[in-house]
């Protein structure tokens, strides 16, 4: 048993203070903590005060011990979190509303940011940024009054992921996602002379590293340092609705959130804790959704006439098929018809097709690519 904010909580050996707090719905803010990976304590935001300990403790990596008395929101804890947030906001290009003080300074700040930026937009993670959310909650602002100059250019050379190190807070979630979750080992903490940074491959770009563009790092990034190129500037999170579905590619059956705006999918993420993929996706699952919006989609039935396929109405096309099949059955029996179903489409479609062949046509000539 330990006590959190005056409440007794039972725990299992090996559980951290954060685990127990989460289970008991006590909210401790986290940034670098990534479920199912080794806690790093990089960000220092999840600190709590333990009675009898002179220093504050990181709740993500401190194991519970019987009798611990924990405060998650004491004045000392809150003050420490504010300091951490202020440092993060001041460390890079965080040009959201939490920036500097005073209207004039704010305007100048935004203009500087835009002129320093490689593209003239505000932070693409606006409204979906953990740092922004916590800065608002704790009412903290960054220290700089002018925008920091970009030290490393935006990485734009791959088709899927934009890397913007100027917005990176070095929390290391992307490194854990790449190395501990997906185990692709494409990115790591590295050294750039006297400054630590996240490097891809041998400090080049994702394109030349072992990156396989699964996008797990993007899903893990709490700020705007890693964003989907396809979804760039398309999303305001409050304008989208999330629809849960199953991936249409391989036989693993990953669970996806489709982020849908005005009836159109604009982003796909994994369903955290969903079975079987626990939030993970691969490059096709995450980025392979937009084929449905191709201009080449079939939009009307087609009928061959004078060796060309021409547009037809449903009635024309369905009547033609029914008549032709009826005639073939009459002339040569039902086994003169055969069909191949689709291993990509839903169960209900395959059921319906075999029912058509068996109960209407009266043949078992129905198969699909089951064995390949």
């Amino acid at each position, binding site marked *: 048993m330990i006590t959190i904010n005056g409440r007794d909580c039972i725990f299992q050996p090996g559980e951290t203070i954060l685990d127990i707090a989460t289970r008991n719905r006590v909210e401790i803010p986290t940034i670098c903590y990534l479920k199912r990976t080794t806690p790093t304590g990089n960000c220092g935001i999840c600190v709590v005060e333990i009675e009898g300990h002179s220093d504050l403790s990181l709740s993500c990596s401190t194991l519970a011990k019987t009798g611990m008395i924990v405060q998650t929101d004491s004045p000392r804890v809150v003050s420490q979190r504010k300091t951490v947030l202020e440092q993060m906001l001041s460390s890079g290009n965080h040009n959201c509303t939490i920036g500097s003080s005073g209207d004039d300074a704010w305007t100048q700040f935004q203009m500087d940011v835009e002129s320093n930026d490689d593209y003239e937009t505000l932070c693409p993670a606006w409204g979906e940024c953990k740092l922004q959310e916590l800065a608002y909650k704790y009412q903290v602002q960054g220290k700089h009054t002018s925008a920091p100059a970009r030290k490393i250019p935006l990485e734009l050379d791959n088709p899927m992921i934009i890397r913007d190190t100027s917005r990176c807070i070095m929390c290391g979630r992307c490194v854990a996602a790449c190395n501990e979750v997906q185990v692709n080992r494409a990115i790591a903490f590295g050294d750039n002379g006297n400054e630590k940074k996240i490097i891809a491959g041998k400090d080049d770009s994702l394109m030349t590293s072992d990156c396989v563009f699964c996008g797990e790092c993007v899903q893990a990034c709490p700020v705007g340092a890693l964003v989907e190129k396809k979804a760039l500037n398309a999303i305001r999170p409050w304008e989208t609705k999330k629809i849960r579905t199953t991936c249409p590619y391989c036989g693993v059956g990953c669970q996806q959130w489709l982020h849908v705006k005005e009836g159109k999918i604009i982003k796909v993420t994994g369903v955290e804790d969903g079975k079987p993929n626990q939030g993970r996706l691969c490059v096709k699952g995450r980025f392979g959704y937009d084929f449905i919006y191709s201009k080449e989609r079939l939009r009307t039935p087609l*009928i061959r006439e004078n060796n060309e396929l021409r547009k037809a109405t449903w009635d024309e096309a369905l009547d033609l098929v029914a008549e032709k099949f009826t005639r073939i059955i009459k002339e040569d029996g039902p086994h003169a018809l055969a069909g191949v179903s689709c291993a990509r489409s839903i169960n209900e479609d395959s059921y319906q097709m075999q029912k058509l062949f068996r109960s209407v046509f009266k043949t078992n000539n129905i198969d699909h690519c089951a064995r390949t």
Partner: protein
Amino acid sequence: MTNSFGEFSKAKMFLVIGSNMTEAHPVAATFLKNAVEKGARLIVIDPRRHKLVDFAELHLPLKVGSDIALINGIMHVLIKEGLYDKAFVSSCCVGFEELKEKVEKYPPEKVAQISGIEAETIRKAARILASVKPVMLCYTLGITEHTCGKNNVMDTANLQMLLGNMGKECGGVNPLRGQNNVQGACDCGALPNVFPGYQAVTDSFARKKFEKSWGVSDLPSENGLMIPQMMDGLVNGKVRGFYIFGENLANTEPDIKKVEHELSSAEFIVCQDIFETETTRFAHVVFPAAAWSENDGTFTNSERRVSRVRTASNPPGYAKPNWWIFKQIAQRMGHHWKSNSAQEIWDNEISMLAPNLGGIKYNRIEKDGLQWPCPDTNHPGTCVLHQDGEFACGLGVFNPVDWTPPAEVPDETYPFVLSTGRRLYHYHTRTQTGRCEGLNELLGEETADISPEDARAMGISFNDFVKVKSRRGEVCIKARITPEVPKGMVWMAFHFREGNANWLTNPAFDPQTLTAEYKACAVALEKV
């Protein structure tokens, strides 16, 4: 799969055979890699040194198509050295004497000559496999796409029964299914021999049940044709009307020239698809269908989990859900089907007719899906099949099998083995992935993957054009030189029309399953 993806992270040991998981099932591979990082052991049996080999303690790069010889050799050692699970074999299996007699003929020294794996390595593999319990065996199309595909599958089961790894958490025989719903299409009866729920069409009780439910009489009692037989029928006139739903046969079947001859011989082809494809060129009528995320429904994954698929956007133009199209045809032929949505079809028909799916209803799978067998609505679903040594047929039956070589092996004129498969950035014939922004940039063309040794010997450099030629056709594509591929092999995929491996592959089939030998044929390679 007899077991589940959720067990991967807890497994103690894996035997992965004929499965390039990091490219074909990337997310499954992540759980396997996690387990290895935590101390699980991994043996990979595969001609190619694919990514997963980096995580393996032992890689057996066997010659293409020698799987049965190698597995029999491993079982030979297990029996000879008394390392097999005697308790499991005696209490849960039958046919051990026959198996023993069969694998007696596969001593490691002999197997070494067939498989190219040294006798000592075979012994070592057997000893490692016997030292850990249970072992999770995973395979993919490297096992099935052979003229001996069915026997390959049997032998993986023989091995797992001999090791006592069946019916246990983190054990079993686990085929990773290639397509999102190939499991479900089988479960729902899109097969020539069974109704939904694997009820045989030759069984009169099953026919009566379906006749009653569907309100018809005289359901056909003989097994129907499999795809290659249908294709033959197009040429000899036995099949006059051919209905192709969502498959691009013109690119996916072996020997494209032959396939196109068959399709062009057809009297009447109906295609139902979301795009015009190489196959719809042969169609007489094309129906435009709703795609993934344009209608509600369910997919069933490799681990038998039935999960929901939901509507996010509307189908374009006049495109319609597939189930609706089938219903309209039935109606025009005098059959009025009641169900009018995917949910009604599932809840009121499929789950009522297939006993293993009886407990799965839409309202139970709003969040995570359920794994069959799930016989009633209180049943939690089944993660592990054959638990406690109880097999569907009572006892586990050993099916001893002999090794047979591929139908076509290298010779003087065609000295290389061509093996085929899938690559990470595309899916099948790119009908879908070819139309997704960015994926073509990550992989824009087919290549002939060859070994550094062969490249050096033939003076081929990276991206040089090479001609790959088989008895059926030839393609001219760029060479990709990679240590993944062993000497003597050319490896290609079938994602692109240009340079598609199926211009070359051999339409030789497993005699029972009629699965084509995509994994082995003979080709010649020359620098252009």
